[in-house]
């Protein structure tokens, strides 16, 4: 099966019903994408498929065929969202952070606080209480 992963074409030999989450972590060795719940509730496994945020724990590998998949690794090490999450302490244990950042990536540049809340409603955090996360996303908007 072929798809584009973080901008580069890849070909993998994988069971078509393997979860995209496991394909990324096991076959592609990209462990930035996390598993929280495995049932679509927490958003820790969020990646972008053709620019749309999805829970990779609910996507059969076959549905990524021919698509462009973007994971947290695809943002590099100096994306404004990554820096602002550090500066604002938007991450504590860090399990939710890659998913939060991927979901935040697709928010409109002029998103209001309410729109940020709505855009991140599918991402749960057990540590921060969310305020620091919203602050981080807002300060990344300004950069």
């Amino acid at each position: 099966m072929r798809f584009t992963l973080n901008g580069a074409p890849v070909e993998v030999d994988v069971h078509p019903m393997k979860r995209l989450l496991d394909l990324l972590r096991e076959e592609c060795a990209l462990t930035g994408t996390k598993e929280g719940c495995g049932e679509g509730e927490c958003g820790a496994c969020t990646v972008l498929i053709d620019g749309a945020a999805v829970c990779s724990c609910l996507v059969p590998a076959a549905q990524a065929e021919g698509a462009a998949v973007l994971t947290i690794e695809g943002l590099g090490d100096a994306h404004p969202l990554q820096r602002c999450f550090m500066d604002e302490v938007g991450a504590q244990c860090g399990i939710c952070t890659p998913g939060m950042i991927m979901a935040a990536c697709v928010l409109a540049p002029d998103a209001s606080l309410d729109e940020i809340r709505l855009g991140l409603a599918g991402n749960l955090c057990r540590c921060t209480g969310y305020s620091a996360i919203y602050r981080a996303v807002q300060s990344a908007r300004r950069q």
Partner: protein
Amino acid sequence: MKTALSTLELRRAHTLDDALAIMRAEHRVPIAGATDLYVGLNFGTVRARRFLDLWPLDELRTISAVDDRLVLGALVTYTAMIASPIVRERLPMLIEAARQVGGVQIQNRGTVGGNVANGSPAGDSLPVLAAADAVVVLRSVDSERRVPLTAFYTGYRASVMRADELIVAIELPRVVGAQWFRKVGTRAAQAISKVVVAAVRNESSARIAVGSIAPTVVRLTATERALASGAPIDDAMAALRAEVRPIDDLRSTAEYRKRVTENLVRRFWSETA
């Protein structure tokens, strides 16, 4: 994932004709956005082993207005409904419902066909479709039939759909009058409904559908009749209390659901007056 991958088998359909031929020959379980199915597979509660992926069927992704009908292809996602000017103009209550499904990740993948086929009593699009007199278009390799949504379900998660059929579209006649939608859950996002009401008011007549209170979505026909006859709202609510027989489950009690249903219908009636 709790289900052993080695026991699972998937075929992918690239045209609807292909998909229907495979359904006739092999009775596979279709997969659309997988947002219900993969939850079950992750937990090991899905018994089926042979699946058919419908996701590549772009021909089921169209939203169109044909004559006076709005037609939603089975693979139309919540995100596509929310973005559609035709849906916004014709069926704003469906957009209200779609916005309250899961979070964006679920809205990007979950489909209307999956919501209808899955048939959860808490499916949020179902009261909207029932109040709008929607028709489910079922196709097999050699036949097509149109079943009103209100006749589609035969019981809890059971429907008239045959093993060789697929839902290809949902058809909606033009809705005249004010549309109203309200979902009550534990929190704004990602919550399964405790009670969900969709209703249409055209002067003195009303169509009211409620989800999460019975094994299937229900239309409150006695309440609708009472309102259409011009009965005062308190009399109509007596009819409502007589016809609503909610379920007790881990999310709420029957008594709570009955009270909330009554409060929502009262609010619908006063807000659309």
